[in-house]
């Protein structure tokens, strides 16, 4: 397959399927993330391989993790926004996460994220939930 023929949306959809839906984080990275990937998550090293190391540890610690995708925004310039509900384990309230990716020539080349713990619904000022 010539990945450079894929649109940013097609590359994003393939990554999303493997990473978020199948929870095969390392496989998704090996296939779709550029080796020189620019990482903006302050808790991860930059580059694909440094992030893969962190993901391997993460998968071992949280074998029952889940990503529930709530919405995906495909930007017109090759940036993609994924809004998901992440849980380390099924019985947790979990985290609201936005991942932003920049996609070029069939690779994810840059990543930003924002992560916020979901509060106890009893303390929320509205009943709409975070999603």
């Amino acid at each position, binding site marked *: 397959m010539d990945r450079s023929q894929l649109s940013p949306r097609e590359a994003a959809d393939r990554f999303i399927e493997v990473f978020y839906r199948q929870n095969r984080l390392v496989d998704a990275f090996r296939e779709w993330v550029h080796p020189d990937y*620019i*990482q*903006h*998550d*302050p*808790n*991860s*090293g*930059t580059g694909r391989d440094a992030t893969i190391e962190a993901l391997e540890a993460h998968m071992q610690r949280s074998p029952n993790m889940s990503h529930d995708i709530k*919405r995906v*925004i*495909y*930007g*017109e*310039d090759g*940036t*993609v*926004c994924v*809004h998901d509900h992440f849980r380390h384990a099924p019985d947790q309230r979990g985290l*609201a*996460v*936005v991942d*932003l990716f920049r996609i070029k020539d069939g690779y994810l080349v840059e990543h*930003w994220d*924002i*992560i*916020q713990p*979901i*509060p106890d619904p009893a*303390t*929320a*000022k*509205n*009943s*709409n*939930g*975070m*999603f």
Partner: protein
Amino acid sequence: MRPAPGVLPWNPDAPPFDPRDTSNRARLSVREVAERFIQLFYVEDNPRDAFMAWMHPDYIQHNPNAPTGRDATLAMMENSLSRLPDLSHKVHRVIWGDTDLVAIHFHFKYEPDTRGYSVVDILRIDGGFIREHWDVIQEVPDPATAKNSNGMF
């Protein structure tokens, strides 16, 4: 109005606009509504004009620390602004979606000399109004503790 060079990822080829002009709101695209709201809210730090022009009175609020509906959220924001008049939003990128959604990634600070927060706001726009809002907020850490030197933006 036109975007200042380098300030916003607006479409520089779009015709100039008045961000407070709501007279043709039903004919505006999702992107055009978002551009007007971004100018007033994030660039001018004017929540009253931004909300009264572009938020639907019954918009659905998903931020768990804010009440739902336009007027309740606006009252909360004006209260913040009166206590913290130097609060600021610096827009770093906008994901202009191909449906009814737009995502805005920005650096929010309550006070100028603080590290502040990395925030994404997601807006759903329909019929010339913002109808729904989600956000995710994370404190920017001390750069000395970060595992890379790329920054959060």
